[in-house]
């Protein structure tokens, strides 16, 4: 089989083509994982944040590095490295704190609450060395409206590790999430919710 060259188009988030390195699990497993992500999107859109927290593994790392506009020759550094600039760099405890804040109903940026729609697409599922863990990539489009005429969009890609946990409420738990926003300068007033 002809070797497929590594892509350099999406700097910092380039992944090798699927055939070059990774294998997809069975269609059934892919379906289960897709359903997990759709379920998650629905919980976030309906403000069921306590239920959403049960989808998260205790050791989750929820991370959204900052990206910059760099010269082509320096573009490998476009995404901040772990430990560098980030919009989110959260443990489960941190995320629970954010949820608790929203539940005070005094988090004025979300009181009155936004109405969101998490559209999750372009899902690709890969096996890992651990038979119970899967790498799942997905694109998202979060459209938000609020109050009289506020609206904005946040678009990006997620690189998840999702773990099968049989006795968990949703059958799987999110063990790791890297969120790559498609904006360097954020053209929104805040990131008040979850992606």
């Amino acid at each position, binding site marked *: 089989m002809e070797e497929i060259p590594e892509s350099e188009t999406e700097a910092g988030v380039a992944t090798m083509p699927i055939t070059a390195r990774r294998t997809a699990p069975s269609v059934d497993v892919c379906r289960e994982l897709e359903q997990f992500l759709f379920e998650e999107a629905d919980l976030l859109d309906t403000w069921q944040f306590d239920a959403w927290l049960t989808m998260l593994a205790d050791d989750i790392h929820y991370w959204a590095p900052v990206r910059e506009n760099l010269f082509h020759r320096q573009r490998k550094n476009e995404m901040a490295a772990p*430990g560098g600039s980030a919009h989110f760099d959260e443990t489960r405890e941190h995320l629970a704190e*954010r949820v*608790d*804040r929203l539940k005070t109903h*005094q*988090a004025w940026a979300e009181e009155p609450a936004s109405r969101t729609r998490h559209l999750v697409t372009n899902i690709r599922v890969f096996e890992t060395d651990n038979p119970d863990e899967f790498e799942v990539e997905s694109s998202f489009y979060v459209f938000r409206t609020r109050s009289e005429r506020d609206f904005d969009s946040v678009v990006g890609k997620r690189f998840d590790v999702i773990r099968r946990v049989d006795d968990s409420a949703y059958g799987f738990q999110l063990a790791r999430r890297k969120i790559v926003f498609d904006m360097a300068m954020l053209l929104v007033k805040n990131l008040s919710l979850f992606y």
Partner: protein
Amino acid sequence: MDVSDWVDARNGFIRGEIFTSEEVYQAELKNVFARSWVFLAHDSMLKKAGDFIQNYIGEDPVVVVRQADGSVKAWLNQCRHRGMRICRADRGNTRYFMCSFHGWVYDREGSLVQVPHEEEAYAPETFDKADYGPRQVPRLHNYKGFWFGNWDETAPDFEDYIGDFKYILDSHIDRHEGGLEVVGQHRWIIPANWKYNAEQPSNDSYHAETSHASALTVLERSRKKRREEKGEPDNRVSMATRAAAARGKQFSGGFGHGAGWHEMPEGAMRYQAELPATMEWEDSVRDKVEERLDPYRNANRSHANLFPNFMMLANGTMRVTHPRGPNEMEIWAWTFAPAEAPDEVKEEIRVNVLRTFSAAGMFEQDDAENWLEEQRIFRGYMARQDPLVYTMRIGDARRGLGGVPGIIAPSVYADEGARGMYHHWAELMSGDSWDDIARRNAERLAQVPHAEADNSQEI
């Protein structure tokens, strides 16, 4: 521009027009931003020759470049040929910058060194490349690692410009021998006038208890839990406790600078982050900081703004708020940590700031909410008629109160910082010369009674 219909800062009289008018905005670019000292870069962003960052003075893009001899130059990021942006990367390292329109090439100093087809295209007797470098920022000053620039040759020197604010600035940036270093950055936009993010750090501790009720509540809850689990000492005064007390002071400087802080009880500390490693490390270096600054400033610091748009918070947030029309600001925020702190302290500070004062920050979001609603309301005609209420503790400030230089209000809840900011803003907007403005500034400061003459205002 005469702004007296909208601003009489001495009497706490300010109308919404100054936040929405396009005419006011254009005058600000000329009279405020092109005449004031604006933050450009920190030494830790320009470590070696050829390192550069882009920044802005108002709406004017500026490239700041470390030179081969260790000096720094800053120049307008605009090709002289057709006005195109020369450098289109946020930061990097380079020997030359090429304009991607017609290929004019500039070196690190901003000298034009190559023009394609120069011999055929331009007559040598009338065209000298030396005449066509981009406009240099003529005044640059490095204050303890922080680079500031000013377009105006007639403006006061930086140290005269900051005046008494030096006391405040040092309490943020000169605590530790090794200085500060950048550990994070965030950029985002808020659809509201830039002055809100200048006024608030100059002046407004008053909003925190209400605006930030949610964050104060959950962080206090987490802090209590951590204290119980990890046995942290309970003699520490938390953010929530501080916010509930009016005890503190507000600072107003000569040229529009402002600051405020809740005063800690005797022996208590204001930590950069209320997190275990940071508190432990700050306790361990407390003597050194007290010797470098003084015990009062070791314990007390909170929010400040170096006019016009360089804001700083005790948690390590430093940001420059770029104006983008009357209705939008662009926030360029950096997180600074003490360079000599252990890695785990820097990490706590980095994560603490991104979780509280970035676009996803639990405090920041609610500030934006206030500002953009104000902005929207001021579109109305009637909404711009009545003066807003900037009269808190008017007449109560004294020079040097409590041994703090500047015009000091006897409570953290005051509008002295905002009155000082808008007073200077109106002075600049008048278009009068810096000499006249500086003379009137000195006269105004001299009129404020000294604290020794009247200590009755101490609370």
